[in-house]
């Protein structure tokens, strides 16, 4: 990604950044958007938090992303946070997670009419329209069963790296059903399986099936059909996607599960995109008349 002029005409070449602060990872997207000619992704960067100081991780990840984008922080017209973005002290505004994931999803996969975002602690299914509007949603809360953290625990327990989970799962021959997907108690289940000599792929696949069942249920609950884009950290898990596709086929549902190489960054991308949108709206307003309502709107939507 190379760019010639750093400061093009500010009005139509806009650099914006989205920072998605999750509970396990920070993701940053830096974009350059031109009014007419579309949007260019300058940098995507993510870092696991891994028990480190969060503000430090945010700062570092952001600056690495800016480096990669070849931008300075002054060049960024709008820094949009999402997720637990309150911690981004230098943000311009904040957008809610579902709003950004929906936007990021339509950017990555224009045909997507539903999004399933699975992160470290939560899962949420959204039905969206082509303008990224969230039409309905369901989310898990209060219980981390079946979440990314759960999978992480399991994989740690099985001694496989997260990155390997997907591939292993797809090698399974006789997946073993798991009964509990409590992020903590499932360990015991897995112990049982290990001690019964069940292979790692079969265990992982069983877990993926159980998760897939849960997620498909969430998706069905929001009444989605058509193309579903997986976003969030678990979108990188090809085993989960596979299990979901199988479930879709088995239940003969009118869904098509897709992932995208940058799915993990959907929230950050969406935030950066909304940032650009807001920046233009606000500039337009600033150049016409200013009313209290407008700043308030900025406030209400933003922080």
């Amino acid at each position: 990604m190379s760019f010639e002029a750093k400061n093009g005409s500010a009005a139509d070449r806009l650099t914006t950044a989205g920072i998605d602060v999750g509970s396990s990872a920070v993701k940053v997207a830096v974009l350059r958007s031109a009014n007419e000619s579309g949007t260019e992704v300058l940098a995507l960067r993510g870092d696991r938090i891994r028990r480190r100081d969060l503000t430090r991780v945010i700062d570092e990840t952001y600056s690495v992303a800016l480096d990669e984008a070849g931008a300075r922080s002054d060049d960024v017209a709008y820094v949009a946070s999402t997720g637990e973005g309150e911690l981004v002290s230098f943000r311009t505004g904040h957008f809610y997670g579902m709003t950004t994931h929906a936007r990021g999803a339509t950017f990555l996969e224009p045909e997507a009419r539903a999004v399933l975002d699975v992160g470290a602690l939560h899962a949420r299914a959204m039905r969206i329209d082509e303008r990224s509007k969230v039409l309905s949603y369901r989310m898990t809360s209060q219980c981390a069963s079946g979440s990314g953290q759960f999978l992480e625990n399991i994989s740690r327990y099985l001694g496989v790296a997260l990155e390997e989970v997907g591939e292993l799962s797809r090698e399974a021959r006789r997946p073993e059903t798991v009964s509990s997907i409590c992020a903590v108690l499932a360990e015991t289940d897995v112990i049982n399986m290990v001690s019964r000599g069940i292979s790692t792929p079969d265990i992982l696949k069983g877990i993926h099936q159980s998760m897939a069942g849960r997620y498909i249920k969430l998706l069905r609950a929001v009444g989605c059909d058509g193309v579903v884009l997986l976003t969030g950290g678990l979108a990188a898990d090809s085993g989960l996607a596979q299990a979901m596709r199988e479930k879709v086929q088995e239940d003969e549902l009118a869904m098509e599960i897709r992932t995208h190489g940058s799915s993990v960054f959907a929230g950050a991308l969406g935030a950066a995109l909304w940032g650009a949108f807001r920046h233009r709206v606000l500039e337009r307003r600033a150049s016409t008349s200013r009313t209290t309502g407008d700043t308030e709107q900025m406030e209400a939507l933003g922080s």
Partner: protein
Amino acid sequence: MPDVAPSQKEQSMLLQKEMISGHYDALARAKDEGKKVVYTFVPGNLTELMRSFDILPNLPEINALQSGMRKLSGGYISEAEKHGHSEDVCTYVKCDIGMLKKGNIGPTGVKLPEPDLLLLSYTGCFTFMKWFELLRQEYDCPVAMLHIPYQGDGKVHDHYRGYVIEQLETEVIPKLEAVTGRAFDQDRLRASLALSAAAEDDLVYVLESARHRPSPIDAYFGGVYYIGPIFSAFRGTEEGAAYYRALRREIDQRVAAGQGPVTPEGELETERFRLVIEGPPNWTSFREFWKMFYDEGAVVVASTYTKVGGLYDRGFRHDPDNPLATLADYCMGCYTNLSLPARVDLVEQYVRDYAADGFLINSVKSCNSFSVGQLLMLRQLEDRTGLPGGFIESDLVDPRYFSAANIKNRIESYLQMIEQKRTAGPAA
């Protein structure tokens, strides 16, 4: 349990099976034959009254529990949740609505007819009210509402009875008349009530046979079969009365032969524990659940669940001489319409009457009517009887809430505890 039982047993089982499938067939034919179909609930059902109008009752709760036993409920429940029903609420409702959304195919595989009327005789639970409000929206049909006052202070007051009778006269009967186009026939009702009373006598006889040692019946897992006909469409019918006569004869034979109860794996050889159980069973894993008991030689000698559709062993019988008043009393006397202190009294009485070694509560997630207060019941009963109480949790028809390992662990621990107490002899 058709695969196991000796011949006598098989007879009443077969009879019951026939009756039930016959009823579903009749329901399926109802529209063609010009019969009216009324949906109603088990607790506080007015079967004799409906039968006196030649109405066929359909009971959504029974359909739901059947779906649970046939492992269909999970799918139905998700279907309902997909339509916006909360995860938190009673799974009978969701199972029913899910079944409806999936084509309303009944337990025997035949399609159920739409209701001509919803008879909301709502005894012992508020969910019933919402359930039929929901069904009304689905079917857009009339509802007859019968409000049964709760025995808040453990009593049935005269003005409660009067209120129920007035509602029968001004709300229920007129709506039944309107739906069927017939006039209310008090004599038919009386005749039917007399048949009820006879069946009730026999049922009580069967339930009380558990006082024998060994008990010839399991009054919970077996009990749910025994109450089937009288709690559903057959109270006040010739068929129903005949079934209970036959059942009574069978039990007499078991007693005479000194036999224990029949389980899905044959007759129980040794009775090691006698238990009283409070709370409904789990239907999705009914067999597995039962097995956890009979494998350890535990027999249930009395249960409260078998009183939800009528509490007969405390003396109440349908009375042909006071047709409306007796219906009112019946409704108000169903188990879940009793106040909590009265429920504690009843269980305590069972523990004593049936010489039980302990009591166990199966608390189901679905049912606030049953479940709220059960932990206090447990405490009170332990204090009053000095016997160990057990507590397990499951659900009626939601397979997600049956954790076999957990329940087994608890039951085993509980039974070992009774055993340990017994072998150690009386306290030093």
